[in-house]
């Protein structure tokens, strides 16, 4: 295969066409071009790296945390060191951006919530699979949904919120929407009629801020590193406190649902054969070999990556499908 002036080689016609289409799109939106301009290095002909050209990873950004993009610098450098490929991360502003980037093949890999993976699975099946997730230092591989209310409010139980208002996170959020609604139904509560009104806040931080500001009575958030019995050492309620957005003493958790399997790294299976094994190993070694990068990503020391597969998320896939069927037959609660 002829090598291009920029060092591309072994590109198929289809790939070239796809790249040209993307470049056209990028060119039409100068804002998106900032920071993007990696050259493809000379890669050994016939190698899997030459087949891929570069590694593209989609992540969901956090608008409330301006440093979230910078946190990926260490990951990028680590993946580049191991694979020899230039690594690009694409930060989507919402859940759907990551989902569609993986489903369309625009990226090779992504980090996404379990329900987002379920959405991808519904679109393309095994063309993308979950292959690694985080096991927290406490040994848990999952987390919980929790309903937060203002500590000065009279609400003590879920039943107290009947006819009140709630902020969910996003339709594609596992813990902020899909999983807790299923749990409520299992407990005999129809969330579409139980709450007087619900909003989609766009993130757990935004949901908590909306609750703290009195825009809604309750917020659906994520908590982890513990159980309802031991309490939770991590979660949205801790994060907003550290950022000075909401005083942790003003938040009370009154209901939990879980556990939900931790967010997976999802990888396209139509990439060269060694890719998935190398990326799984690259992730797994990170907390042991580069603990500073692990912590830079907001992870807590003592945690690790563990392998997962489609079976790990089968329950969430079934939940999402059931929720969609429910919404189609009875409304969304909006």
């Amino acid at each position: 295969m002829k090598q291009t002036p920029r060092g591309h080689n072994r590109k198929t016609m289809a790939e070239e066409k796809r790249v040209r289409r993307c470049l056209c799109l990028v060119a039409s939106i100068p804002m998106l071009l900032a920071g993007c301009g990696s050259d493809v290095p000379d890669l050994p002909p016939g190698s899997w790296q030459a087949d891929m050209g570069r590694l593209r990873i989609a992540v969901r950004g956090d608008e409330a945390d301006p440093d979230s993009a910078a946190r990926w610098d260490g990951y990028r450098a680590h993946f580049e060191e191991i694979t020899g490929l230039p690594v690009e991360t694409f930060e989507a502003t919402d859940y759907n951006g990551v989902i569609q980037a993986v489903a369309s093949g625009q990226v090779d890999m992504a980090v996404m919530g379990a329900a987002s993976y379920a959405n991808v699975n519904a679109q393309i099946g095994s063309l993308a699979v979950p292959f690694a997730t985080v096991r927290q230092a406490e040994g848990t591989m999952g987390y919980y949904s929790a309903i937060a209310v203002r500590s000065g409010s009279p609400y003590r139980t879920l039943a107290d919120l009947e006819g009140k208002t709630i902020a969910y996170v996003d339709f594609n959020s596992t813990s902020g929407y899909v999983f807790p609604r299923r749990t409520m139904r299992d407990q005999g509560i129809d969330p579409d009629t139980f709450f007087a009104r619900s909003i989609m806040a766009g993130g757990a931080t935004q949901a908590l801020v909306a609750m703290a500001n009195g825009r809604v009575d309750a917020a659906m958030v994520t908590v982890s590193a513990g159980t309802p019995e031991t309490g939770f050492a991590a979660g949205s309620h801790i994060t907003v406190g550290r950022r000075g957005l909401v005083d942790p003493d003003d938040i009370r958790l009154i209901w939990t649902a879980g556990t939900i399997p931790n967010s997976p790294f999802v990888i396209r299976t139509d990439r060269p054969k060694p890719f998935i094994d190398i990326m799984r190993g690259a992730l797994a070694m990170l907390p042991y070999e580069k603990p500073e990068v692990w912590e830079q990503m907001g992870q807590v020391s003592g945690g690790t990556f563990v392998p997962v597969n489609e079976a790990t998320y089968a329950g969430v896939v079934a939940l999402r499908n059931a929720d969609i069927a429910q919404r189609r037959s009875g409304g969304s609660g909006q």
Partner: protein
Amino acid sequence: MTGRIASIAFLALMLAACGESSGSNEAAPAAAAPVLTQVRVAFEAPATGACVSSSPEFDPGQKAYIEHLSERMDIPVMLCPFASRTEAAQALADGQIELALLDAASIAAVKDVVRPIMTQRIPADLGRVEVVLAVMDASPIQSAADARQRPMIIPGENSTVLAGVQATLEQIGFAKTDQLIAPSRREALAALLGGKGEVMAMQSAQWTRLCRGETRGETPCDGLREVWRGRQPAEEAWSARRDLPLESWARLLGIHIALVQENPLAAGWIAPAMTEIEPIEATGLEKPL
């Protein structure tokens, strides 16, 4: 239709973080670096012998392992009998094999060129617990050895974590005496500041969360010093040469950590307890005391 979805997806991506870290425009060192061209794996046998990829004496687990690893690495895989771990360690150091199961004793003589890369997860909820020992800045304690026999404070907010921390401390040589169990990490800190102990020990995750604080600008660990951090030592670990190419290292690791899930027959040979295979740090076989 596909093109439209692709376009929408791309538009949805904010390229705020797009780009690459320094050095990626240069010829990629890892891609250009050599990778393994064969994997020779040591196993314990009555007598040391030649490496072979098949033998009528291999059990189904060994055969499954060779087949699985060879297919996934895309290179020949052989098993090599060794009468002792010390011999296997030396062969590893000499570049005659690529992987060997070693322990602290057998790796000691070759640890400058050989290191552990993966081990079986110990059958405990938390695996190998990482512990931090912290003291006040002004304390004369400078190391784990100095901290031995000193009054210690440990948070007990999570009983499973507490048990893991105590097991790690015991394994590295700390007696279980003279430990004050505080109800929470914040109360452990208050006890240290109040002079109720000289050393605070906790799981590294507890330490991180303690030091992050709970409100904006809070820096609870100011005035404290970390004197030791480490995990429970592993009894044995699959080891490789320190110059193992990174790509091959990642590929070997990626294949092995998924082995129990993907190929139980092969996993049963290399990880007889059938607990996960997990990575291990370079010092994972060593005891600090």
